[in-house]
């Protein structure tokens, strides 16, 4: 998605990500992709 793609700690667990977002006052960046992984 960006030049620093490999540095992004992707997960696929939205519920856990929302919990983290709440506790750390962040947003969730949600990527629906078909790109090679």
């Amino acid at each position, binding site marked *: *998605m960006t030049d620093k793609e490999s540095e992004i700690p992707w*997960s696929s667990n939205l519920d856990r990500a929302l919990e983290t977002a709440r506790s750390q006052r962040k947003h969730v960046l949600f990527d*629906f992709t078909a790109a090679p992984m």
Partner: protein
Amino acid sequence: MNENFVPVRVHVRNQADEFKRLGERYGVQWTPTILVVDPTGEERHRVEGFLPAADLLAQLELGLARSEFARSNFAEAERRFREVVQRYPDSEVAPEALYWAGVSRYKATGDASALGETARQFRERYRDSSWAKKASVWGQPAASPATAASPAPATR
């Protein structure tokens, strides 16, 4: 990016069940689709289709600003919208951010001159954008806050 976001990714083939479940929840019908989701799970911004990195980063920052605005955090929204204009002045979203920065200041302060000032800025830059047309009504002498921006400023 990690400073502002918790990143989640689902793949249309490798995680087909999750993709279907979450795609239906957010009405996703194309890839790539990137959402800025607030901590309550509410979608605040959407980018459909590929964008180069700089354009995508501008979109994500616009999304954070829109999220603040949607949650009536108008001073913070203004700060973030202005940051988009400053950091990405040549991006597609810069005129939109300039427009909403003016609205955010008006909503935060109730001072209609923020709208007139925004219209003045649009006479100097982004003149061909649709956002300049939208702001042009604020630059007319007869414009009042009631006609220029229908929602009342928030009182916080």
